[in-house]
């Protein structure tokens, strides 16, 4: 499928798309609206947040209209039903990534999930329960990240190191937009306590070879946290074969509501972590002198949870599973191959990231010669095309590749070749507008 037969003048090749985009588009109410004076919305910013199908919106409404109550509190019928719906969604979301429900912790988003782990590792230093000190991070310890990380998977670790005196180290990038693993065995060493790495770069689109990293980390006894914010929505992910200790992702990037994210953790690891946020419903026994805590996942879910959002995310998972994650991945791969070819046809356009679809997802960042990404984005917006511009919360990456910012297009289940044609035409319109061609 990644093979493209270039015939002179034939242009980019359109492989048959595995998803029925017309039927899918009909499920997304927002795609019927117009923008900027009646133009069709060409939404190429799913990497920032995805649009929501009616099924997800209906699930939230169903919950509020029929079941609404605080789960895990109260004994009335609504409370029971709310708890049931909440836990049913947990099981469903767990199954989606091959995990038992006891290993699924709901957070606000990926960012909060990563902070939960980072704070648990520093809280471990002062925990009164000895088992909670198992993974304590301190002076002399090292945390390893990569230069490719989203700020959400970088700043919490920088801050953990500042709180604890540990040292932050990182794996660099190659000119082709891949992780430079040549010094993996020295960067990840006996002092390493945790390796945090993204499965799919939000800016370069690169899919990382996690097997090598996980193997090395476990060889030295380090934990591995995988940032799945850009992978779980777009490719099949199974935590059993992943082999990591934590996987984090956001509901809103996978057709689900905002305000719900997931921390998956290996149970035996979660069980030895002290809480991050504390309060109601995460406790076992409370006395004025001190309290004890519930086992995971409840230990990490203080307060009334984002119940309707969790149920909405459950509906999103149903929707994705009905499409089939294999097909979603294949669909985006076909679009990515086409988009890379279409962009390569435009003089002055440079893709930042892998140039082909090998180990690559659908985030395509690019620059247009002599036009700042904001200005490219503005022209595209004027044509009804929504893209992301800027540093994409991955400032070290744009710095590494010597550009101030990029324009980024990202795809999802409703994206078709017509959207990519609109993007290519839009880039040419920007070049014409700014007189660079």
């Amino acid at each position, binding site marked *: 499928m990644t093979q493209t037969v270039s015939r002179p003048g034939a242009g980019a090749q359109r492989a048959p798309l595995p998803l029925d985009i017309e039927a899918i588009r009909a499920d997304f109410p927002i795609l019927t609206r117009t923008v*900027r*004076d009646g133009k069709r919305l060409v939404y190429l910013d799913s990497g920032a947040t995805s649009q929501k199908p009616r099924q997800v919106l209906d699930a939230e409404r169903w919950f509020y209209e029929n079941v609404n109550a605080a789960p895990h509190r109260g004994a009335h019928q609504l409370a029971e039903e709310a708890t049931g719906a909440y836990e049913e969604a947990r099981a469903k979301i767990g199954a989606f990534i091959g995990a038992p429900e006891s290993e699924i912790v709901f957070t606000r988003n990926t960012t909060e999930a990563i902070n939960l782990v980072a704070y648990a590792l520093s809280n471990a230093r002062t925990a009164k329960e000895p088992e909670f000190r198992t993974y304590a991070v301190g002076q002399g310890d090292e945390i390893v990240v990569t230069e490719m990380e989203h700020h959400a998977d970088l700043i919490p670790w920088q801050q953990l190191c500042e709180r604890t005196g540990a040292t932050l180290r990182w794996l660099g990038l190659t000119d082709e937009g891949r992780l430079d693993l040549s010094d993996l065995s020295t960067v990840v060493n006996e002092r390493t306590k945790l390796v945090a790495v993204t499965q799919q770069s939000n800016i370069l689109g690169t899919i990382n070879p996690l097997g090598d990293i996980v193997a090395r980390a476990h060889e030295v006894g380090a934990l591995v946290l995988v940032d799945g914010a850009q992978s779980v929505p777009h490719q099949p992910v199974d935590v059993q074969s992943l082999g990591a200790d934590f996987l984090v992702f956001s509901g809103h990037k996978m057709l689900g509501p905002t305000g719900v994210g997931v921390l998956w953790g290996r149970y035996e690891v979660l069980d030895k972590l002290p809480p991050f946020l504390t309060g109601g419903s995460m406790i076992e026994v409370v006395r004025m002198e001190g309290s004890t805590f519930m086992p995971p996942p409840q230990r990490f879910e203080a307060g009334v949870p984002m119940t309707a959002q969790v149920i909405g995310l459950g509906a999103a998972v149903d929707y994705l599973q009905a499409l089939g994650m294999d097909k979603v991945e294949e669909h985006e791969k076909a679009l990515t191959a086409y988009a890379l070819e279409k962009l390569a046809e435009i003089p002055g356009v440079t893709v930042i990231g892998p140039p082909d679809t090998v180990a690559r997802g659908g985030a395509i960042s690019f620059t247009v010669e002599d036009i*700042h*990404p*904001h*200005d490219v984005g*503005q*022209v595209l917006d*004027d044509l009804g095309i929504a893209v992301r*511009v*800027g*540093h994409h919360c991955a*400032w070290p990456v*744009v710095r590494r590749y010597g550009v*101030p*910012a990029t324009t980024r297009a990202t795809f999802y289940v409703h994206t078709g070749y017509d959207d990519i044609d609109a993007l290519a035409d839009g880039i040419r319109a920007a070049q014409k*507008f*700014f007189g660079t061609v």
Partner: protein
Amino acid sequence: MQLESMYQEIILDHYKNPHGRGLRDPFDAEVHHVNPTCGDEVTLRVKIDGDTIADVSYEGMGCSISQASISAMYDLVVGKPVSEALGTGEHFMTLMQAKGDPAVAEKLEDELEDAVAFAGVSKYPARIKCALLSWMALKDASARAVSTAGGQS
């Protein structure tokens, strides 16, 4: 296309041929301002002579709006008393808050000269910060330069 309302010819001219660009000595204060949502950056120096802005010199990286705004600002403030320059900055801020209201632009035409061309930017909330970056840097640098100069005298 509504684009022309934002990208006035004057703005594109300033972008392509910026006035006063480059960092120059001597200077009384240098500031570095960034727009963290998008990564636009400007390094700006101010030289004050008495209570007059003798020079504004700058290097920047960013979109056409942010870069053209610095150039237009340079034309407006160099040779002016600090207080008048900051007053012009206030007018520019008013223009940016006008949500594209042509009446506001018309009223400020004399004070803002070329910079009144940025009126169209005020219709695009995401771009207002681009246009304001240089003015914020100027305000900061002027305050520092004045306090330095005050300390010396």
